[in-house]
């Protein structure tokens, strides 16, 4: 009953067994948030630094709540208020933090591989909260937990991921996660937002959303990342809405009990029609609830035992 690593850096290197351990642990953690006193003493005296070099509401709040519900002490640092502005390197920043005796670093960074870089150099456990366009493992895990809760099992389910796959770390983590759990994954995006040779990840690729939607159990809608759209990959948002927005009319072609997911924050009316986002098919808020439980489970599992060995992947 252990995760054999010091860190959670991505889904790619997790086994199906490890994913199941995380999901089972998260299921038991969910109940703690329903208690009169929503706190257990497990991580008393442990210190967590949430180091966020990119904007975040959900993920930061979710990690902070998970840490508090396990009784850890935590501090939040963001690039806009830290010495990064004065030119301090990432490595110097985290080495200084470690000199103050910390146990976990939760890091979000715009560069892919930043968590891996510091994980190799720190004794503290490192949790990837999103690195560039690479991975967002806790998001994929909370998505799996939400799907399991709604559908019972993930094996054999047909999942369509729609939108800005090119810039999406959520898409990459979810493709690995869903495929490890036995789901059939397809992608749908404008050709300019579909990474070259993405089908090598074992996914089916669609351009036409109305064709892609048919027979799917789950439609996972990605956010159009306006902050990463500098290269003219989309002619206009209006065209994207016309061709890809998930509307109630489009949904008529899908299965009757199709599940709608979105990692947030939603651009209402761009990738997702508000009537669908708030409709009966949506489990978007369940995803947020499960986020806290999954992050509690990760903190629990990475804290394991006295050995505290640095396991090489």
């Amino acid at each position, binding site marked *: *009953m*252990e995760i054999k690593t010091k860190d959670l850096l991505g889904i790619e290197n997790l086994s199906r067994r490890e994913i199941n351990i995380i999901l*089972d*642990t998260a*299921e*038991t*953690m969910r*109940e*703690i948030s329903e*208690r*009169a*006193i929503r*706190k*257990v*003493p*497990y991580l008393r005296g442990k210190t967590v630094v949430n180091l966020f070099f990119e904007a975040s509401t959900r993920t930061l709040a979710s990690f902070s709540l998970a840490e508090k519900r*396990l009784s850890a002490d935590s501090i939040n640092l963001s690039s806009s208020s830290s010495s990064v502005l004065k030119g301090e390197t990432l490595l110097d920043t985290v080495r200084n933090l470690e000199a103050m005796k910390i146990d976990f670093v939760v890091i979000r960074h715009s560069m892919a591989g930043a968590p891996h870089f510091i994980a190799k150099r720190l004794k503290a456990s490192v949790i990837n909260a999103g690195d560039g366009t690479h991975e967002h493992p806790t998001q994929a895990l909370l998505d799996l937990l939400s799907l399991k809760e709604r559908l019972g099992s993930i094996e054999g389910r047909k999942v369509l991921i729609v939108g800005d796959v090119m810039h999406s770390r959520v898409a990459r983590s979810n493709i690995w996660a869903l495929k490890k759990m036995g789901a059939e994954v397809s992608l749908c995006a404008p050709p300019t937002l579909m990474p070259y040779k993405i089908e090598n990840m074992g996914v089916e690729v669609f351009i036409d959303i109305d064709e892609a939607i048919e027979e799917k159990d789950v439609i996972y809608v990605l956010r159009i990342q306006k902050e990463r759209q500098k290269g003219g990959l989309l002619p206009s948002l209006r065209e994207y809405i016309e061709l890809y927005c998930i509307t109630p009319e489009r949904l008529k072609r899908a299965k009757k009990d199709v599940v709608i997911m979105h990692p947030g924050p939603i651009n209402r009316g761009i990738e997702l029609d508000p009537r669908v986002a708030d409709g009966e098919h949506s489990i978007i808020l369940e995803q947020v609830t499960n986020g806290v439980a999954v992050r509690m489970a990760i903190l*629990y*599992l990475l*804290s*394991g*035992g*006295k*050995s505290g060995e640095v396991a090489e992947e």
Partner: protein
Amino acid sequence: MTTKEKGTVLDDVQIKRALTRISHEILERNKGAKDLVLIGIRNRGDILAGRIQAHIEDIEGEKLPLGVLDITLYRDDFTSIDYLPQIGKTEIPFNVSGKIVILVDDVLYTGRTVRAALDEIIDFGRPREIQLAVLIDRGHRELPIRPDYVGKNVPTSDNELVEVKIKEVDGEDRVVLRQVEVKDGD
């Protein structure tokens, strides 16, 4: 660590008698079943609590609310164990405030599990009272905790183990005393 069986402490009939007696004692001391709730500690205390629930229903005609507690996240020995225990679900589907909680476990030993359980129950509300029922009290307390209801007192030494086997988990109802054999290099 290897262990050798030294003998049977209780057989299935004796376990049943002990639980029947404890059920009567609970009702006698609390003058009926009013405001009583049962909470069993995983794994096995929860099953014993379920049996006490059934006995009390037979005697008094009232089915007490039953909860299950997993104390993993309240343990005090995380810095000294080298494996991570699997967490089970805690399910307390009722409000404990103002109730008399009968806390049930299989073996009372150092008292540390009960300490963790008391802390956890109090995070769910403020019971009027918490009473402790155990199938076996084997002594060696490290905390000022004592049981209110005991199936059997079994004086033991530190290199003995008391193993409670329950049909639902282990295939048979039996309490076994085991000797720990210390080998060179252990």
